[in-house]
């Protein structure tokens, strides 16, 4: 048994956009939980026991049973607490498939490309910049004129992407572009998300994220 505490616990790192997805989902559902900040340089026994395969955060513990991988955690939260509104995934299977597709797209593309954008230099960085613009424009087009990726309601795909809005400033400064200029609909969506209490209370400030990346760069010996 990973841990036998009753209720919900979240093993997480303050700045992690993956952890923030879970925090947003828990807040949207009005679910109380114990937040346990992890030191990834000195991983706790609880973390290692709860996620022996990947040894990563976030991990959600529900009555001691671990759920790993942020999007899997978000779906678990939605499915295990069906009485708690709002539903993060819509009822219609086709709409669910669309939401899952876009959450998967964000998962596969955004973080890795963003990392290459701030880590690399020269031509490799230019390539990452090109890819980042492509990703953001694709998301902008997918959103279209809708209020959220889920349509009228804030949902699964929005939860998947919202934490990365705090990283836009970091991407902009490293890529020398403006999200507002290149993807105005996405920028407006980011603002709308930021007005939700669950998102506002969860996200790190963009400047703090930029500072965090600066610390990482120093650690990697990058200028």
């Amino acid at each position, binding site marked *: 048994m990973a841990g036998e505490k009753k209720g919900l616990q979240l093993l997480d790192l303050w700045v992690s956009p993956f952890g923030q997805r879970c925090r947003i989902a828990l807040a949207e559902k009005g679910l109380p939980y114990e937040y346990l900040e992890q030191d990834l340089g000195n991983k706790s026994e609880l973390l290692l026991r709860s996620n022996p*395969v990947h040894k990563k955060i976030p991990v959600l513990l*529900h009555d001691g*049973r671990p*759920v*790993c*991988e942020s999007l*899997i*955690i978000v*779906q*678990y939260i939605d*499915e*295990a607490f069906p009485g708690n509104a709002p539903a993060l995934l819509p009822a219609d*299977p*086709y709409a*669910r*498939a669309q939401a*899952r*597709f876009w959450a*998967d*797209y964000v998962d596969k593309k955004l973080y890795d490309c963003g990392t290459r954008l701030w880590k690399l230099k020269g031509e490799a960085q230019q390539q990452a910049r090109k890819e980042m613009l492509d990703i953001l424009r*694709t998301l902008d087009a*997918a959103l279209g004129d809708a209020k959220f990726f889920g349509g009228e309601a804030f949902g699964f795909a929005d939860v998947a992407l919202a934490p990365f809005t705090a990283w836009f400033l970091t991407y902009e400064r490293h890529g020398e572009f403006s999200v507002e200029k290149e993807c105005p609909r996405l920028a407006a969506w980011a603002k709308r998300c930021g007005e939700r209490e669950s998102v506002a209370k969860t996200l790190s400030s963009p400047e703090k994220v930029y500072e965090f990346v600066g610390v990482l760069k120093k650690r990697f010996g990058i200028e």
Partner: protein
Amino acid sequence: MAGGGDLKVLGVWTSPFVIRVRIVLNLKGLAYEYAEEDLGNKSALLLGSNPVNKTVPVLLHGGRPVNESQVIIQYIDEVWAGSGPAVLPRDPYERAVARFWAAYVDDKVGSAWTGMLFRCRNEEERAAAVARADEALRTLEGALGECSGGEKPFFGGDGIELVDVVLGGYLGWFAAIDRIIGRKLIDPARTPLLAAWEQRFRAADAARGVVPDDVDKVLAFLQTLLAIGSNK
């Protein structure tokens, strides 16, 4: 055989991602039209249906596209919840565990697979990818033993479920890789539970005719894929 409106799959016969979708359709007893795509000359239908990723599989249901194999599988399971066995467990925690291992397979086995066949520039790099595959399969051996106490035939228990079809989709390629590297990736001596699972999976009705079993054909097709890749 139910069809619930027309179903069409755009695929490539060796793709692990396509194979898993076809197995699920078979499990559910669903009739569908299959169209083989030429990855060197993608059809307008494919490009129009999956403009973002331009990949197979695509499921067209009443003309509407669903993309990404695990998204497709969950869509089929939800639309046809009444027909055939459930592909995902009903219990939320068990669903989370199934999704975890399905994601693990595509993350670790999938990346090793591309490394063993498409991304290695020399035998050293291939060997490194093989080592990663070995490690992933060792972990999955443990998972299979845990999830059924070594007592049940499949990851899903008595029947084939999500993790089975996700891993099973790679079996045709594994047989080809076994020939290339001169030993079995899923070796009864190293991973006995997986080896037994493979036999059962390959023999299942839903998998027959869909999991490639002609190694020569697969190896010949590999050359086609490599040629397409180098012409990009």
